């Protein structure tokens, strides 16, 4: 056991802190550029978003400092309590929450709004880490999988009730954690296969085909028919070429996976076609490029109509956000338009530009160079967090570290992907850069708890 009386800030990973500070300040600059209004040039003007963000930065600073001075053991010990507290907030928000855009995601406290979902991740990370560390779970049996599922599932279910699909999606991050701790790699493969086949089904389901006998029906039936034909071919193939010894097993796998694929294909298509609301549906279609043509900015030959098309009411136009963000990104060029100089940003074409679409501001004003530097820094940061997690002696710290890295990764994946047109429009923030008190404070605590735990790694027995 090392000396417990070493200075609390000894062994703190200052490089991580530096990256954090760079990201936060860079984010603040871009928020300022995106939100600055005439007559309020002071970046600390509390009546404006950038001023508020500054306030959140100060609050975060003190909270993070507090975390750094705390005992790492506290978080292990009180993990269930914190989990319970944040879960309670998720219940509370359903009762007293303020409804914005159809989501009950915010608790109004005076002039500020709290988004419990941003804090729930901390609770899940801590409790999941504690559970795995305590039980040495390898997720090779149903019991441990079930418990992990419950820990993640309760807050997830509460968030689904808001409903905040975006936040929910980031919970996929925990799959990486579970995978690292022993969950079969098949989960990842099935997940990937599911995404590929799900997308194919949605695309097939988007089309309408005129079938013989059945008349006009969803195109997904054709896909299912093709899958069925492939299964028959594989059946014939395996009957002839697979050695009799393993033939039975192969046939079972073939049968089960065929049924599974057919059912999956049908359900995805059914879900998208019949269950989702029209705007959700079209968001998916737009992301997949199925409906982009109709709402695409047509600039060929007629500049005026392009502007017209963009200026028309956008509430019913799910492609608008994606299109504007993409144009803003493209307008950045190689070196960017310069700080505070982005025409798409300054003229308010990109909606939500200081929150979810902050990356479009970065891309427009700092160009390819700035964007790549940011993406590189982010990737470097995530990889660094993974490596930091791996160097922990305590499994609790390692699992928690993976949670932190995975959550940042999911946010980065979805948020940047959305801005550059590789992911659906899902309203989640880019950690440290997007405007927002809950997200900045939540992500800061999430990170600094890990930095605290990491600082203590040498003083903990394996």
């Amino acid at each position, binding site marked *: 056991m090392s000396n417990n009386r070493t200075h609390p800030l000894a062994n703190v990973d200052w490089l991580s802190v530096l990256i954090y500070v760079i990201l936060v300040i860079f984010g603040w600059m871009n928020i300022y550029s995106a939100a600055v209004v005439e007559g309020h040039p002071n970046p600390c003007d509390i009546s404006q978003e950038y001023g508020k963000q500054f306030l959140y930065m100060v609050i975060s600073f003190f909270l993070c400092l507090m975390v750094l001075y705390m005992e790492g053991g506290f978080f292990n010990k009180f993990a269930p309590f914190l989990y319970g507290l944040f879960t309670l907030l998720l219940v509370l928000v359903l009762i007293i929450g303020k409804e914005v855009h159809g989501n009950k995601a915010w608790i109004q406290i005076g002039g500020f709004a709290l988004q419990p979902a941003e804090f729930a991740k901390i609770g899940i990370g801590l409790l999941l880490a504690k559970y795995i560390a305590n039980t040495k779970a390898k997720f090779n049996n149903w019991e441990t999988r079930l418990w992990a599922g419950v820990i993640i599932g309760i807050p997830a279910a509460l968030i689904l009730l808001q409903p905040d699909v975006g936040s929910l999606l980031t919970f996929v991050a925990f799959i990486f954690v579970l995978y690292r701790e022993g969950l079969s*790699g098949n989960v990842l493969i099935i997940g990937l296969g599911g995404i590929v086949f799900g997308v194919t089904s949605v695309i097939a389901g988007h089309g309408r085909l005129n079938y013989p006998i059945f008349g006009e029906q969803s195109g997904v039936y054709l896909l299912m028919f093709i899958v069925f034909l492939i299964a028959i071919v594989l059946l014939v193939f395996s009957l002839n070429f697979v050695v009799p010894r393993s033939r039975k097993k192969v046939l079972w796998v073939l049968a089960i996976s065929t049924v599974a694929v057919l059912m999956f294909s049908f359900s995805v298509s059914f879900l998208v076609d019949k269950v989702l609301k029209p705007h959700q549906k079209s968001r998916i279609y737009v992301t997949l490029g199925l409906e982009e043509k109709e709402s695409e900015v047509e600039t060929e030959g007629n500049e005026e109509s392009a502007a017209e098309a963009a200026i028309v009411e956008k509430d019913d136009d799910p492609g608008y956000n994606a299109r504007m963000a993409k144009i803003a990104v493209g307008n950045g060029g190689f070196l960017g338009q310069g700080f505070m100089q982005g025409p798409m940003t300054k*003229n308010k074409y990109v909606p939500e530009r200081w929150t979810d679409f902050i990356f479009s501001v970065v891309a427009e004003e700092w160009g390819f160079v700035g964007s790549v530097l940011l993406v590189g820094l982010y990737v470097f940061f995530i990889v660094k967090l*993974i490596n930091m997690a791996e160097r922990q002696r305590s499994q609790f710290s390692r699992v928690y570290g993976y949670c932190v890295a995975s959550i940042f990764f999911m946010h980065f994946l979805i948020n940047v992907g959305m801005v550059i047109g590789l992911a659906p429009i899902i309203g989640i923030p880019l950690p440290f850069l997007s405007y927002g008190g809950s997200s900045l404070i939540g992500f800061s605590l999430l990170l600094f708890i890990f930095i605290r735990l990491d600082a203590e790694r040498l003083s903990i027995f394996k």
Partner: protein
Amino acid sequence: MNLDARRITIIVIVCFIGITYVIRLFILQVASGKLADDARALTEEEIPMYPPRGVIYDRKGVPLVTNQTVYNLMVVPKKVKPFDTAAFCKLLTITKADIDKTFQRAKDRGEFHKPQLLVEQITPSDYAAISEQLYKYTGFFAESRTLRVYPQGIGALFLGDVGKISPKEYEQRKGDYTKQEYIGKSGIEKAYENELRGVKGINYAFRDNRGNIKEGANDKQDKPAVKGTDLICTIDAELQRYGEKLMQNKRGCIVAIEPKTGEILALVSAPTYDPNLLVGRIRGHNFNVLNNDPQKPLFNRATQAQYRPGSIFKLAQSIVALGTGAITPQTRIVCNRGIIGCHGSHSNDDLEMAIVHSCNPYFRGVMQRVVEADRDPSNRFRDARLGLSVWQDYIKRFGFGSDLHTDLPGVKTGLVPGVEFYDKWYGKEQWAFSTIYSLSIGEGEMQVTPLQMANMACILANKGWYVPPHSVKQIGVGGRPRDEFLVKYDLNIPTDYFTTVVNAMEKVLQPGGTAWRAAPKDIVVCGKTGTVQNAGGKEDHAVFVCFAPKDDPKIALAVYTENAGFGGTWSAPVATLLIEKYLNDSIAESSKAREKTILDANFLDR
């Protein structure tokens, strides 16, 4: 199972995503410029800056057309907040219906967020009161424009007017004009549109997602507007004004040209109107009034009316006959009034006296000698065809049947009937000289414009050549006219022949001549009267062409007064008064009586 290796898998996934995103960013930001073009199309607004049109001065530097600033009141319907409609309407002297109509139009066009024109062309004095109150009404603002103003109030049709570009003009000059732009519609404004309009400037601004324009935000270098080129026109303002005054209460026109240069000194079409009536908000109403006026004030008689020339045509006939060798100045023809009537007491004139007496049988004989010259002795029909071709060739040298290559827009060509015309009319070889002899005295199918008559006077003054009549003397103050107006058109007819005719014209204004009463003191005027008969029993048209002074002609004129009577009585005094005005700058006492007679005359009801 070695779970530590899974770290590598996860790191690979993270890096894979990172690389994918970098590639995607490269595609969006570097590889293609399309998105940047889209961004420019969306965010950049090129605000056109309309330069003031060039000023038009008279030949002495008097401004005839200048500019004034007016204000258009615009509204962005989307930005309008509830306001005191009654007070607002009162301020602008409009009705609530006007506002509703504008809003409805914006709605129909899907332009609710765009500036709409509410009240057009508010004068500076009216605007002063409005601007003080305008801040109270959110969504309304004023835009300045320049309009034409005519300080002298003369030369309406000559100067022309400016109006919003028509769809047809827009199609013709696509790319050059916007749909909102103004363009010269007639007269000099139209003929010199390219010079007068100047060069539009561009103010680069930004347009935000709501369509608001933010000026000054865009760093891109603005393109300044260049003011239109000023013109010195050929008109003499005083002469023009006096001409318009003399033609008051009359239908007709005056064309005055400086013979040596082809410069149009005055171009009057009567009745005329104050060009200021067709400017600004009152334009629409006044245009309708003028357009429906039975006296047709908008019809430019000087360049567009095609009249039978009457007796003045005998001047050209004389030259043609001499030129073709059909007669000599000494040729005498008996005034046989059997076929064609005549007037006055004469019986066997030579050419000079025939002109002075305007002897119809003489000129019938003259033309007969030109046309029936036994070019084909076997058949008089074929002979007439050959003869008429010769005649037509000569007549056309005077510019008859052509637009004279003038710069004035909408000029009519008139008609010089030739072989083709009569073949069509009567059938091939179905006509002979006896069919068409009315031409010889300027009646029949012959049609000329007053501009052509004045040009003929120039040819006579110059004894054989002319410069195309034109309206602009200097493009840009101190500049030159268009190149084509520095070129002489020579008729290739010996000068001597003209001398004979000019001598005769001098006698027209001497005692015994048809216009001797109109002769001014101390100025030798050469002229010829005409009295053109009218179908339908209406009073004859009075025609007079002339130039002066005889030895060094400075001005040539054609005056055409519709339904006035004798040319010598009603048109010749107008011409000689103008000559006096132009050459002496004043009207002599001896001419005052004549002036009064003309001013008092009223032929509008005839």
